[in-house]
Structures are given as structure tokens and as C-alpha cells.
């Protein structure tokens, strides 16, 4: 029956393909790394693909994983074949319902891309901490180890649950399997039908609730019956293992791919055996086979069925010869006797009466830590010891509790007959996309086996990517990164001089280098280390100026197809003519839908590539005297030198346990030490044209251009190229003024140039800020910026007008983040830190702002010269408002405690006026805060002479007397969807917290899924045909309370209103909500126009600007002030500039017209409503109406 059709897909697609075809309903919510599974199903449904019963499944995006599993539960209870996809915290949110789903014996499979649960830190990568948290739910748990198995087990799970009525948690390793591209055999619809018993599907439907056959579930039971009723399911669990094996056998008969509940591999007479689960098994199996061939008596049990754990089958799988076992868990349970699978194995052996002299447990691979053949061998070597350490770790150096075992890191089993290629690229250059293409070309046009895995750094702009590609005659299972590369491609020349990209190049390997120089000049531009490695490793070196080729054919920086052609030429995987035809075919397939011009230019790029490829005659000796520059400045703090710099160099795996704090605390003020140099062009200031409005500084997403006023004498040691002019306005007349670019932080987004209003009257194309080549200006501007940074910032209490312009003279305490070039969110955050940074506590919902805010190695929050700055943390996605409220409760308690101590110590302090001022402080301005800090210092001075425990306590907590500014940051996915319930409650609490919603109208961080903020007519994932329902009016809902300060702001449209709203919100002694329009790459246009689009949104009425201030009622004024004037632009003109809207117009113009009209109608109604609200009469007390508006 098997058609042996192969496809090259990743694990997510492999699992989703079966899930989609064998279900009717999918309720989903995006979470990394499982999001693509839901996205695939949505795309297939839009394309009207059917399941095996000829139906198009219904895909429903929910507001959270808790919501998704609720909808799943309901669909199951109504008898539909239903599935969902999730990971990590999402899975944890499903747990309450999983108990119900299992308790009610629903046939159901959920597919989980296993991911680390956040503890001391969040991690998007893989371990089994999430699935292990589900052990008690009553789900069958089946683990896939590879892309092929993710496909196969998706089907086996579905067959098993129908037969057993026990739901199945089918899981595979996040990223390592979910995102690995591999060539697999695809199951046909007929094969699916062969495994899915329609009678059981019908039985599932009939068990569903129906008024035609009334029944009741979900009862409340009492001590008299609950226990017995709970035990009634036992027989069903008892037979699950047998059913799983039977379905595996049926599957094997159909496909030839045979699986056991517990698969043993290795020597039949193995004495040392390891037991593990997941993708680690693949590298372990390769290693065992390698070592068994050399005579080692070792083996492994691959655990596939983890729950119900079948003791009989498990024990039977252990060879009789086994003398020692190491159970490897990919999770950590602090405080437990051992990790879960270790405990299961101990219990299983005990219950089976099987004697194995040594059984130990170990941990490996947390958060996708590499699990290499060297580590596998290390575990076997460890088992050989007389008294091997129990509860060990492998893959790290634990120099604190000494639990890690040693291994020979140089051991590897790479197959010399395979091509092992490493590609170093940038996200924007398309390297990963082209490599995925290459894998498919080779996988689908040759009999070779293929594997691709892609590693990204933590930045969203200028991200470095490393592609690991293997091609070979034998199936490729290895789940670890390439150890020795036979081919290394460096797609960005700067990388070879910044990082050790040749470290993994094998002797005699091929090096392909994109270099912006003539071929004969390339060698001279390499640093000494690179030259030496090329010579010592005898690398065959080829170069191409791919950027020039791309530029010549109109492809900008997209060099990927050019480099792809060179790879095929040099690797000889295919005859070059055939390869070129296949590349062009792939280009047509990939890009034809995006436009013929794109196809033409890509093909032109490929055609031009090989004639520009040159082999370099490598000199016998290194000629360069330049060394690779240090990763970080020698002046950086010690921790950054010892830890952060190692991580930045890509060597974080080498750091020992002692390098880290045990609670995840991390110093701020690190990103400013990172010099990324990712811009092609940077802004250069023209002082004589500048009108000193500071807008360039205001809008910069990366704090890479700053304004400063200072006294002239500060210029004494200025570099010759440092630019300075007289400050023009009266507030600081007599001072000097400078706009300075941070050339190594700039991302080249162009927003500053776009916003600059000052033009040369004789040549208006020249502004006061103009982009110029980075390479020509970086050295000079680096010196200038270094000097600029050391000029003391202006005394903030002297700034008379704290508006958009004035705010830019304040020291920013946020900068150099890894956010996207042109990001629409980060400027808001930076302005907040300029205004309140030295008093800020920030609670940050998971999402873009938590990633660019807290993703290591470097983070963007800074400290001022006094050592103060924002203190930041991320709890979860769903609980951020509550988390921030907790800050406020604590801060208030700390202040109350300090006040109580002050009162208690009033006598010895003996300064009633000071105490009264400290207690009654109502600071609102920088001068007020400075005065209060001064009072605190006076207090401390007096406390020194008081010898009492209370005095020491007060000394320690006196800073609590300075009002703290609690901020809650998050995106619209949090505020409108998953966190809305909590946000609503926190706003209703009346407590003094400030909420900043960075509204991109879409789930940006996980790749553009629709939220309830997504506007009508916009395409987003899960709203591919264009969202039909209007955006939720979060501001209006908050206003309805009456006591919440609410503002809707847009930096591009009205910058002064932004700053005013921030100041008002912070000063308001109750809850405040600011909703900030944030343009985003998910809107589909060049973000250099982001501020223009914001203006269009406001002009069209789509994004009204307003401030609702409950305090105004006290002055008998209407609380709502509209800050945007009447509609003066069309909604259509706004929509026409963004691909998210144009996509709908292109696909279905008539539908788009209706949606655009609906949007315009909704906009007009909303603006009208706001206008009416802003004109309400507020009546004073005594007229019978109270003071309510």
C-alpha cells in the first residue's frame, strides 16, 4: 500500500500534515516552536484542502492556550475529531483541561513541540520540562525522535486514541525536530484511511452531547463516589500499551517502518545501556553503532511510550547481559530523588524483579543544549567506572556541585562520505531560505539523504544565522550540530574578521567567501587568524563579490541565490547544469506568486554568479598583521568581560555553572558595550541646516542618534571632526548643541532622515540629517560618539519644557536593543526611560518587547551615572498586568514600612520638618524627586548617629520614600487577548500602575498571527482572507471605568502628545493605560515609512489620538480630550501602503472594497463617538448630577 513518496519537510509540517487530514476541528494559539503547525493547517484550510473524509477542517484561533484547550474540550464533547498544537507554557495552561479531557475519556491527540518551561529564565528551545509536567493528566504520552517519526507517530497516535479512548500527548523535540528539515516518506490519504477506523470515529461522534440523546457530563461528585468512579477507567489504561504496539505493527506492515514501545539498539550482549527519549536518541544511536562496530558492548533503549509506562515491554527490551544503566532525562526536577524517567526505570526494574547492578540517572540537553556523540560516549565511559556518579549532568561544566561528567570533546563520528556544510549569513540576506531550498533540491532530485538545521542569534535586526546542512548516501539522523565541516560558506565578509567562522572547517575543506573586493585583493583584507587557519587547514578558497552581482541585477542585499549557485558549483552534489536548472525552477516555484520581476531578477543573479566566482591561490604564509578585534571593549565591566563577551563570541557553551547567579539575576547596562556595525548607511548631521528640533533623536528605535546641550568648555578635548553649534532656543541659550550618531549601534533604518524637517533651501534633497556609507564614516563617528558619551548630561531639573524636544536632552536608559531595524515600539520605551528611568520598575509581558528587552547575551536597559536605572523582569505572557500590580503592592508596602520606621524614630532623628516632608512628599517633577532624594540623604546622615536596629532597617529601605514608577509593558497579543482578563482586573483595582501597550495589531514575535487588535481588512496568520471583525476598542473599555487614565498615542503623528500622555499617566495616582501605535515588519512595508504611515492612520481616523484624564472632572472639564483633528485623509489611502491590506485587495478586490468600506464606516462612527464624548458637559456637585461626566 505504501507509495514511498518522499518529501523534504520539517517536523512541524510532518506532524501537522497528518493531524490536519485526520481531524475536523483545530483550536489553536501560537507559541514557539509549535506555531507553524497551526499556521500550516490554516493555510491548508484557506486553500480548501480536505481531510480524509472530504471536509475542510475548521481552524479557530483562540485568545490563549487555555482558551484553545477549552474549545478543544467542547468540540470533543460535541463529538468532533479535534486536535491542537502547543508547547511549553502553552501546554501548562492546558493542564487543567487535560485532566478533564482524559477523565472523560475523549479520543484526542495533541501535538507538542517540547520546549523548556521558563524558570530562572525563559527559553524557546527544547527540553522535556513541559511534557513531564503533564505526567499526571492521564494522557497517553508518545514521543517521536525524528521528523519521520513525528509524521508516523501523529498517525499512530490518532489510531490509538480512537481505539483506546485515552487522549494522546504526541510530542517531539522543539526546534531540533520541529524545525529540522529532512527527507521523509509521506503517508498518503489511503494510508491514513487504512489506519483510521471510521467505526471508531463514528463511535466518538455518538459519544458527543446531543439533545437527540441527552446525557450529562462534568458532574460534581462527593466523597461517597468520586474515588470509585475515578478507578473505573483502569481497564482502559491497562490495555493501552498493547493497543499502541498493535497499531505500530499494523503501521509497520503498511509502510515497512517498524517501531516498538521501547526500541533497543546496540550490541545484543551489551553490558552498558543508556535509556532516553526524543531527538537525542538519533545521535546516540549513530554513536552506539559506531562504537559497537569497534567492539564496545553497549546499547540504548529508545523510550517511545512514556505513559502508560509498560513495565513488561520495557524490561523485556533490556538485554540480559546488561550490568549498568544510565537513564538520561532532558529535564530537571529540583528537589526530587531523581528526574522522572529515572524514577520510572527504577520502579519498573523493581516491580519486574529485574536485577541490574548499577542504575544511575543523568540530565542532558536542557534548552537545546547540544547532545553530541562525544557526550554519548562520555556517558558510556562514565558507566564503566566502578562507582559512577548518580544524578550527573553531561554537556556542561558544573564547577559548583561537581555533578557534570567529563568527556572527550574531540570525539566525533561525522561521516566522511557525506557533505557537511556550514553557512554563515545574515537574516536579511536570505541565506537560510536559500539553504532550505538547496535541501529540497537535493532531497527531491537525488537519491541522497538530506538534513538541514538552522541556528539564529537572539537579535531581530542584523541577525546572524548559521545553517547546518548534511547530504549523504545514508539516512541522516544526527540531532547535533556539525562538528567538522567539509564546506564553509561565509556570506558576509565582516563575519570572517569578527568571529571564528573557520573553527569547524575540516582539513582540506572548501571555503566560499563573499567579499566586496576584487578577487586578488581579498586575501589582503583577511585578518591574521583567518589567514593562518586557511593555510594550516589547507582550505580550498573561493571568493565572489556577491553584493555587487546582487546590486547589478537589482536585488539589493539579497545574495542568497548567488551564493546558492556557487555552493552547487563547488560541492558537486549535482552536475552544475542540472543544479542551475533546479535552482531556477525552485526560484520560479518560490517567487512566481510574489511576482515575475522577482523571478527574473533572481534568475539573472544566478546566471551572473558563476562567472564572478574565483579560486584564490592561497599563499604559503599569513601576510596580515591585523588581529581579530576583541568582542568587547577592555573597559567593559568585569562580568561582561568574563561572561557576556564569551556568549557574544558564540562560546557560551564553554561557560561553567559558577559563571551564573542561581536565580537568573543579570546585570543591566550591557548592550551599550556591544558594537554590532550592521548598518550599511548611517545618518550624518549637518549642523548648519539643523533647526534643533530633536526629532531624529526622538524617533530613533535604537537610541543611535542623540541630542545634547552642554557648556562650551566641554569641547576642550573634542576630536577635530566633532560637530557643535550654538544652541538656538532661549531655554539653554549660551550652551552648545550637538546631534551625534552612534555609528556602531545604528541599524540604518532611515527613520531619522525621514522625520527631519530641515532642508537645504537651495537643494531640498539635502536635509539636516542624511544617510551616508557606514564604511566611510564609522571610524570618525566612533571617536565622536565616544567623546559625546562622556559629556555630562544636562541637569534634568533645568529643562523648562518637558515636551518632545526637551525630553531628548534627558539621558536615555534604554538603547542598542536587538529590535528590528525601524521598530515602532522601542522609541516609546526609550522616551519613558528618559522621563522616569531612574525610578522605573518594569513588568514586561512575553513578546517582542521581552525579547529585545531581556534576551541574552546583551540587554538594552541602562543605568545613569548615579547607578540608577530601570529594573526589569518578565514573568509570563498571560499574567503581566498582575505581575506589575504585584510590584506596586510591594513598593507601597516598602514605603509604608519606611514611613512607619520614620515615625517610630522621630524622636532620635529630631527633625520634624524633615520627617514631615519625607512622608508627605508628592513629587511630580524632576526637581521634586531631586529634593526628595536629597532629603533621603539627609535622613541617612542622621541615622548614622542612631544606634538601633530600626535605624539600620530604615537606612536600608529609605529609598522607598522616593516614589517609584511602576510600568507594565506588553504588546497587543497580551493586552487584547491572553492577558486581557488580568489587565482588566488590574485597571479596575485602582492601584497606581502604568500600562504601556505597544500595539502592532498583530502577534509580532511569533510571526504575525491575528489578535483582537488586528484591524478590519488586514491579512494576518489565522485571518488570511482579511479580518472581518473590527479591532477591539481597548481604550474605550478602559474609559468606561471612569477612574482609569487612558491615552491613545502615535509618535509619528503627534510627538508632543506622546510625551504629554506619558507625563500625565505617570503623574496620575491611579491606573493608567497608554495605547501606542507601533508600526511593525508584520505590516509589510519598508519601515522607513513607518512614521508616515502612523500619520496616515491618524489623519484617516483609524487611529484617533486622545487623552482621558479622570482628574479633569474635578475641574468640571470633560475627561476626554481628542488630540487628533477631524478626519482629513482616507482610510483607503492608509491601507493602500501596507502589504497586509494590499494582499486582500490583490486576492479579492470586491471583498477588500467591502472591508475597506466597513473600516471607513467603523472609523467614522468611532471618531464621531469620541467627538461626542469629548464634548460631554461635566456638572458640578449640587446640581444633582454629582461630578460624573
Amino acid at each position, binding site marked *: 500500500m505504501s507509495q514511498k513518496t518522499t518529501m523534504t519537510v520539517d517536523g512541524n509540517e510532518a506532524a501537522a500534515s497528518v493531524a490536519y487530514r485526520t481531524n475536523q476541528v483545530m483550536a489553536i494559539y501560537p507559541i*514557539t*516552536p509549535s*506555531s507553524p503547525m497551526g*499556521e500550516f493547517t*490554516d*493555510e491548508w484550510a*484557506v*486553500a480548501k484542502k480536505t481531510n480524509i473524509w472530504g471536509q475542510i477542517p475548521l481552524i479557530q484561533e483562540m485568545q490563549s492556550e487555555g482558551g484553545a484547550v477549552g474549545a478543544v474540550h467542547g468540540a470533543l464533547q460535541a463529538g468532533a475529531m479535534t486536535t491542537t498544537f502547543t508547547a511549553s507554557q502553552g501546554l501548562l495552561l492546558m493542564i487543567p483541561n487535560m485532566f478533564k479531557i482524559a477523565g472523560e475519556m475523549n479520543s484526542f491527540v495533541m501535538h507538542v513541540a517540547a520546549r523548556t518551561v521558563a524558570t530562572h529564565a525563559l527559553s*524557546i528551545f527544547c527540553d522535556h520540562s513541559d511534557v513531564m509536567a503533564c505526567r499526571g493528566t492521564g494522557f497517553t504520552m508518545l514521543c517521536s525522535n525524528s521528523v519521520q517519526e513525528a509524521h508516523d507517530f501523529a498517525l499512530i497516535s490518532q489510531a490509538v486514541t480512537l481505539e483506546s479512548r485515552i487522549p494522546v500527548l504526541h510530542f517531539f523535540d522543539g*526546534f531540533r525536530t520541529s*524545525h529540522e528539515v529532512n527527507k521523509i516518506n509521506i503517508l498518503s490519504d489511503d494510508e491514513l484511511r487504512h489506519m483510521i477506523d471510521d467505526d471508531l470515529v463514528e463511535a466518538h461522534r455518538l459519544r458527543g452531547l446531543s439533545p437527540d440523546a441527552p446525557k450529562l457530563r462534568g458532574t460534581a461528585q462527593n466523597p461517597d463516589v468520586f474515588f470509585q468512579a475515578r478507578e473505573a477507567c483502569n481497564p482502559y489504561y491497562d490495555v493501552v500499551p498493547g493497543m499502541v504496539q498493535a497499531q505500530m505493527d499494523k503501521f509497520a506492515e503498511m509502510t515497512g517502518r517498524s517501531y516498538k514501545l521501547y526500541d533497543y539498539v546496540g550490541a545484543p550482549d551489551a553490558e552498558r545501556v543508556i535509556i532516553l527519549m526524543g531527538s537525542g536518541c538519533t545521535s546516540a544511536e549513530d554513536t552506539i553503532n559506531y562504537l559497537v562496530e569497534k567492539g564496545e558492548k553497549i546499547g540504548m533503549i529508545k523510550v517511545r511510550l512514556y505513559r502508560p509506562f509498560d513495565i513488561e515491554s520495557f524490561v523485556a527490551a533490556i538485554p540480559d547481559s546488561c550490568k549498568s544503566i544510565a537513564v538520561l532525562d532532558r529535564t530537571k526536577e529540583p528537589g526530587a530523588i531523581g528526574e522522572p524517567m529515572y524514577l520510572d526505570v527504577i520502579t519498573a526494574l523493581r516491580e519486574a524483579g529485574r536485577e541490574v547492578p548499577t542504575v544511575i540517572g543523568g540530565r542532558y540537553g536542557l534548552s537545546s543544549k547540544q547532545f553530541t556523540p562525544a557526550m554519548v560516549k562520555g556517558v558510556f565511559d562514565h558507566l564503566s567506572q566502578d562507582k559512577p556518579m548518580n544524578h550527573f549532568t553531561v554537556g556542561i561544566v558544573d564547577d559548583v556541585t561537581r555533578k557534570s561528567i567529563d568527556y572527550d570533546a574531540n570525539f566525533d563520528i561525522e561521516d566522511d562520505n557525506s557533505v557537511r556544510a556550514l553557512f554563515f549569513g545574515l*537574516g*536579511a540576506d*536570505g*541565506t*537560510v*531560505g536559500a539553504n532550505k531550498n538547496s535541501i529540497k533540491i537535493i532531497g527531491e532530485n537525488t537519491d541522497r539523504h538530506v538534513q538541514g538545521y*538552522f541556528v*539564529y542569534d537572539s*537579535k*531581530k535586526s542584523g*541577525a546572524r*544565522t548559521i545553517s547546518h546542512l548534511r547530504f549523504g548516501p545514508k539516512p541522516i539522523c544526527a540531532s547535533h550540530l556539525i562538528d567538522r565541516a567539509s564546506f564553509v560558506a561565509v556570506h558576509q565578509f565582516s563575519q570572517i574578521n569578527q568571529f571564528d567562522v573557520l573553527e569547524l572547517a575540516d582539513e582540506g575543506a572548501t571555503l566560499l567567501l563573499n567579499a566586496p573586493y576584487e578577487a586578488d585583493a581579498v586575501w589582503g583584507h583577511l585578518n591574521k587568524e583567518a589567514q593562518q587557519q586557511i593555510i594550516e587547514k589547507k582550505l580550498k578558497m573561493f571568493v565572489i563579490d556577491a553584493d555587487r552581482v546582487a546590486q547589478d541585477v537589482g536585488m*539589493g542585499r*539579497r545574495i542568497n541565490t548567488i551564493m546558492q549557485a556557487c555552493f552547487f558549483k563547488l560541492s558537486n552534489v549535482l552536475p552544475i547544469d542540472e543544479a542551475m536548472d533546479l535552482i531556477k525552477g525552485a526560484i520560479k516555484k518560490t517567487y*512566481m*506568486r*510574489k*511576482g515575475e*520581476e*522577482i523571478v527574473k*531578477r533572481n534568475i539573472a543573479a544566478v546566471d551572473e554568479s558563476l562567472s564572478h566566482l574565483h579560486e584564490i591561490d592561497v599563499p604559503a604564509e599569513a601576510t596580515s598583521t591585523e588581529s581579530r578585534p576583541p568582542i568587547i571593549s577592555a573597559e567593559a565591566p568585569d562580568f561582561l568581560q568574563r561572561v557576556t563577551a564569551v556568549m557574544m563570541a558564540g562560546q557560551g557553551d564553554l561557560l561553567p555553572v559558577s559563571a551564573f547567579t542561581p536565580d537568573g539575576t543579570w546585570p543591566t547596562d550591557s548592550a551599550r558595550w556591544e558594537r554590532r556595525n550592521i548598518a550599511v548607511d548611517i545618518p550624518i548631521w549637518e549642523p548648519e541646516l539643523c533647526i534643533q528640533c530633536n526629532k531624529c533623536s526622538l524617533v530613533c528605535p535604537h537610541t543611535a542618534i542623540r541630542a545634547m546641550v552642554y557648556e562650551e568648555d566641554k569641547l576642550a578635548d573634542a576630536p577635530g571632526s566633532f560637530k557643535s553649534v550654538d544652541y538656538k532656543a532661549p531655554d539653554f541659550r549660551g550652551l552648545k548643541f550637538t546631534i551625534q550618531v552612534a555609528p556602531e549601534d545604528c541599524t540604518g533604518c532611515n527613520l531619522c532622515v525621514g522625520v527631519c524637517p530641515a*532642508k537645504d*533651501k537651495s537643494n*531640498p534633497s539635502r536635509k539636516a540629517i542624511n544617510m551616508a556609507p557606514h564604511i566611510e564614516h564609522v571610524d570618525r563617528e566612533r571617536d565622536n560618539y565616544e567623546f559625546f558619551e562622556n559629556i555630562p548630561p544636562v541637569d534634568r531639573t533645568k529643562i523648562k519644557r518637558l515636551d518632545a524636544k526637551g525630553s531628548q536632552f534627558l539621558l536615555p536608559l534604554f538603547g542598542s536593543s536587538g529590535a528590528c531595524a525601524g521598530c515602532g515600539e522601542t522609541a516609546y520605551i526609550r522616551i519613558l526611560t528618559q522621563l522616569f528611568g531612574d525610578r522605573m520598575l518594569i513588568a514586561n509581558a512575553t513578546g517582542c518587547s521581552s*525579547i529585545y528587552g531581556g534576551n541574552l547575551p546583551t540587554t538594552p536597559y541602562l543605568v545613569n551615572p548615579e547607578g540608577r536605572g530601570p529594573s526589569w523582569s518578565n514573568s509570563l505572557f498571560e499574567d503581566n498586568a498582575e505581575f506589575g500590580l504585584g510590584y506596586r503592592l510591594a513598593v507601597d508596602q516598602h514605603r509604608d514600612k519606611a514611613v512607619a520606621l520614620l515615625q517610630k524614630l522621630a524622636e532620635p532623628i529630631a527633625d520634624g520638618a524633615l520627617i514631615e516632608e519625607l512622608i508627605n512628599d508628592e513629587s511630580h517633577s524632576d526637581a521634586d524627586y531631586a529634593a526628595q532624594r536629597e532629603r533621603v540623604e539627609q535622613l541617612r546622615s542622621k541615622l548614622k548617629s542612631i544606634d538601633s536596629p530600626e535605624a539600620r532597617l530604615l537606612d536600608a529601605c529609605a529609598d522607598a520614600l522616593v516614589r517609584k514608577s511602576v510600568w507594565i509593558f506588553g504588546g497587543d497579543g497580551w493586552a487584547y487577548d491572553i492577558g486581557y482578563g488580568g489587565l482588566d482586573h488590574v485597571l479596575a483595582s485602582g492601584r497606581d500602575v502604568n500600562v504601556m501597550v505597544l500595539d502592532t495589531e498583530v502577534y*509580532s*514575535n*511569533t*510571526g*504575525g498571527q491575528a489578535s483582537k487588535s488586528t484591524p478590519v481588512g488586514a*491579512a*494576518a*496568520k489565522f485571518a*488570511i*482572507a482579511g479580518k472581518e471583525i473590527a479591532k477591539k476598542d481597548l481604550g474605550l473599555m478602559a474609559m468606561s471605568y471612569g477612574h482609569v487614565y487612558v491615552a491613545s498615542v502615535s509618535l509619528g503623528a503627534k510627538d508632543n502628545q506622546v510625551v504629554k500622555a506619558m507625563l500625565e499617566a505617570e503623574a496620575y495616582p491611579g491606573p493608567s493605560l497608554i495605547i501606542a501605535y507601533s508600526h*511593525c*515588519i*508584520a505590516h*509589510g512595508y519598508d519601515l522607513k515609512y513607518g512614521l508616515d504611515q502612523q500619520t496616515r492612520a491618524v489623519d484617516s481616523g483609524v487611529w484617533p489620538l486622545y487623552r482621558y484624564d479622570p482628574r479633569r472632572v474635578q475641574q468640571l472639564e470633560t475627561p476626554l480630550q481628542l488630540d487628533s483633528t477631524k478626519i482629513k485623509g482616507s482610510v483607503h489611502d492608509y491601507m493602500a501602503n501596507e*502589504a*497586509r491590506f*494590499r*494582499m486582500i*485587495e*490583490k*486576492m479579492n*478586490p*470586491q471583498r477588500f*472594497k467591502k472591508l475597506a468600506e466597513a473600516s471607513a464606516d467603523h472609523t467614522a462612527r468611532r471618531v464621531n463617538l469620541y467627538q461626542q464624548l469629548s464634548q460631554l458637559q461635566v456638572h458640578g456637585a449640587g446640581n444633582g448630577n454629582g461630578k460624573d461626566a
Partner: protein
Amino acid sequence: MIDTKTQYLGFDLPHPFVPGASPMADDLDMVRRLEDAGAPMITLRSLFEEQIVGEQMANFHATAEPAESFAEATSYLPEPEDFAFGPYEYLEHVRKVRDAVDIPVVGSLNGATPGGWLEHAKLIEDAGANALELNIYDVAADPSLDAATVEQRTISMVEQVKARLTIPVAVKLSPFYTSMANFAQQLDETKVDAMVIFNRFYQPDIDVEELEIARMLQLSDSSELRLRLRWLAILSPHVKAKLAVTGGVHTPIDAVKAVMCGASTVQLVSSLLHHGPGFLKAMREQFAQWLESHEYTSLEQMRGSMNMQRSGNPSALERANYMQILQSWQM
């Protein structure tokens, strides 16, 4: 009933009033209303190759560059199979308009490259257009190109399109040619089926506060007709191609003048945008009434009566006309 029939692009039309290329035809309901108002033919808005290419590349860079850059998101927008930034939306519209009305549908094209003109012309024909108007919307701003080269580029393009297409082809011209009569003669030799005179370019204005070019398009008025009357009158005796006038026809008398100077059809855009589709019916009726009241038996009787060959005062259409007016003013 007076005979107002005319021929244009191979079709027998009951009268000469044709809705010209404009956004009106973007909407199927409006197209039907125009047909109901008696439009004998409909010309669609131009497909601009340059705009399509620009949008494709802008979208490509805006969506492809952030993709495959970050572990949590390998893309940021959905990629539905039936979405493309190409001419497909336009071609689909051609099909829909063809299906919606019984009158001939004329596609309109502004190409940017030799290949683009040919390729898109063929696509519009394949989509079912009954004829094609080539919109020569080209400002000759390159100082390195001489007049002959500019003209030859257009002639060559029209020749190729004519050779490739089976449907009739019109060429919509601008008035800015060094030797319009000669150029029209060359075009005529390509056997192009019609010439439309003249294109109205977007009129750039200057925002003196912002120091920016402001793009403007104002609706035409009758004063713009005079330039067109002159060239209709000059060209109509010499070219075999049918002539259509566009720009400045706002009254029945305007139409009478255009026909008298040699136009086979008059294209209405500004007046329809201003007054709505019902205006076409009124124009048609008042035009017929004028002919009747002036005892014309047919449109053909009137067509070309005031052209340079037949008007009895051809010099009035040439430079002498200019001189005389100036002289009369001086007097």
C-alpha cells in the same frame, strides 16, 4: 432618429461617447451603470508595469528580508496561494468586466520595458479584452536621449505589439513630440487601429512650505479641448487610424467640435467623474439633438468637416493662427 453611428477599433458604435480610462471602471457596479447609461464601449484604467514591478520588489524586500531571520518567526505575513503582486488582479478585472457587460472592453497598458509592453499586452488580450489602448505615459526627461530615439522606441514597441496581438490596438499619445504630424505618420504605418489624443499627465505642483513636489491631478475643462482640436484637425486628413479625443470634452458642442475636426469617438472622463454615469446619456441625447437641429443626417457627414484639409482656412490651425491672435490683441 439621427444617425450618430461611428466606427472605432473595429467596432460599430451607436454613438461616439466612450468612457475613457479612469478609476470608474474599477467598480463592476459602475461599469454596469455606464452600460445602462448607453456607453458603447468601456476603457479600463491603465495597467502600469512600472507600478507592478515597484510593488513586487518593495513587497519582496519588506517581507523577505525579515523572514528566516529569527528563531520564533520564519515569516511575518501569511502567504496564501492566490496572492501575488502582479498584473493578475488587473487581468482578473478584465475578465470580470467582460462577464459583467455586453459592450466591448478596452484594456489599457503603460509599459516600462520593451519586454513588459509585449508581455502584458498579450496577457490583457488573453484575459479577454476586446481591444487594447497603449498609454504612452512617458516624460522624456533623459537629456541623453534625442527626439528620434524617443519616437523610434515607441514606434518599435507599437510594431511589436501589433504583430503579437490579434485584437485592435489604439495608442494614446501625449502632445509633446517635436514633430507630431511626422510621428503620427510613422505610427500610422504600423497599422495601429486608433490614436487617442492626448494624454493628461499628472501635473506636479510645488509645496513651497515643505519644499516638496506635490502630485496633483485636476479634472479637465473645456479649455483643454483646443489643443486637441488643432491636432485632430491636422492629423485626421493624413492618418488612416481612427482618432479619438480625450481631455476637455464637457459639452455636446465640445463633442461636435471634436468630430468636426476628425474624431471618431470622444472619451469622457472628467465629466463623468463630476456628473456621474447619467451624464453620458444626456451628452448623447443633446449631441443628437444638435445634429438634428442643424440638419445633419449623420455623424459621418460632419466628421472631419473642419479638419485642416477641408476647413477652408487651414492656416488658422497652424502658426499663423497664433500670430493673428496676437496681432488682433495688439490692435
